[in-house]
């Protein structure tokens, strides 16, 4: 069954505010060409939508067993539309926009958020969490699951996250703080990478950049085979290491029994190993 609900902006021409019931299994789907999408979690099994729309637009909410879809409808080219939406904490989200800023907090379902020009800021998320921006910083805090975060031209920051991490930026820094993971892949071309988190026995950590530094905070009890590769860069360590093998711009050494695999690569940047508590390098935004 498919229910379409149209809310005409009767009280104020540009504002609409309505609440619909939500059922387990439904996702929230929002597509905003231009404007902000803000989503909060709450304990009610209902979706409240507050929208600020162009005076000629109207809010449409479609419901199916799988989704609650929110959009603005108008004649002609898409207009600015800002949404502030409150959903059950269990609800999954699929949010997209072009010139849109996306913010989420308090939701513990799977999250997909993608914009072209704008930041993506998410607190929460559980399951598959995929965040993307072309031109805008992306940050994720307090999520767990399979996490895939990308910005083309800006920084990516993850904090207090756990699970399998895949993080990319072409021209931005990658900062992974207080991470719990046994499988992390972080790749940049022109940005530095910072990793501060667990190095689990049997885990795999692959941090690669071309033109930036790679800094890893290594716990005292780390148990890892470390492979360092650089062409024109440097290597620095807060603690002594004994190189086991050196070949083709690459050397390896072992910490503890060497159970985890830590691969660190920078074509022309510095690769640093630090101990917990030492000062992390400043990010570009701190300078």
């Amino acid at each position, binding site marked *: 069954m498919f229910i379409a609900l149209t809310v005409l902006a009767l009280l104020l021409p540009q504002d609409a505010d309505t609440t619909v019931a939500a059922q387990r299994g439904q996702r929230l789907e929002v597509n905003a060409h231009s404007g902000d999408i803000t989503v909060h979690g709450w304990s009610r099994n209902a979706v409240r939508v507050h929208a600020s729309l162009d005076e000629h637009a109207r809010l449409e909410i479609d419901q199916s067993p799988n989704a609650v879809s929110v959009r603005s409808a108008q004649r002609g080219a898409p207009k600015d539309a800002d949404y502030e939406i409150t959903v059950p904490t269990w609800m999954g989200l699929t949010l997209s926009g072009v010139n849109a800023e996306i913010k989420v907090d308090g939701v513990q379902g799977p999250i997909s958020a993608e914009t072209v020009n704008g930041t993506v800021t998410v607190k929460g998320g559980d399951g598959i969490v995929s965040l993307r921006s072309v031109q805008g910083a992306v940050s994720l805090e307090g999520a767990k699951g399979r996490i895939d975060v990308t910005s083309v031209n800006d920084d990516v920051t993850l904090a207090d996250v756990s699970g399998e991490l895949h993080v990319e930026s072409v021209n931005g820094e990658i900062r992974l703080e207080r991470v719990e993971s046994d499988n992390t892949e972080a790749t940049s071309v022109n940005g530095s990478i910072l990793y501060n988190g667990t190095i689990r026995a049997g885990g795999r950590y692959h941090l690669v950049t071309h033109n930036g530094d790679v800094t890893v905070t290594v716990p005292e009890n780390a148990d890892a085979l470390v492979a360092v590769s650089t062409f024109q860069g440097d290597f620095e360590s807060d603690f002594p290491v004994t190189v086991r093998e050196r070949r083709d711009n690459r050397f390896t050494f072992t910490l503890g029994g060497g159970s985890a695999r830590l691969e660190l690569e920078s*074509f*022309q940047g510095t690769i640093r190993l630090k101990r917990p508590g030492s000062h992390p390098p400043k990010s570009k935004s701190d300078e």
Partner: protein
Amino acid sequence: MSDLKRVLAAGRGTLDTATVRVLERNLALIDRAIADARRALAADPNNAYLNAHLARTMHQKIDLLRRAATLASTQS
């Protein structure tokens, strides 16, 4: 840049010029990284790290081109 222009040709006019500039700038960064790796490899063709680095950087270029194509098609 011609690669990106070809990719975007199908969706020409659908991406705004600022987005195209950002994509072009980032593609140029990747191309410079590829050129760096190729120069290094020319001097040391059997270097395993350099071969892997070049391959990975070329994959990054493909990913960005694919992303640009997807953006162009979804906004058309």
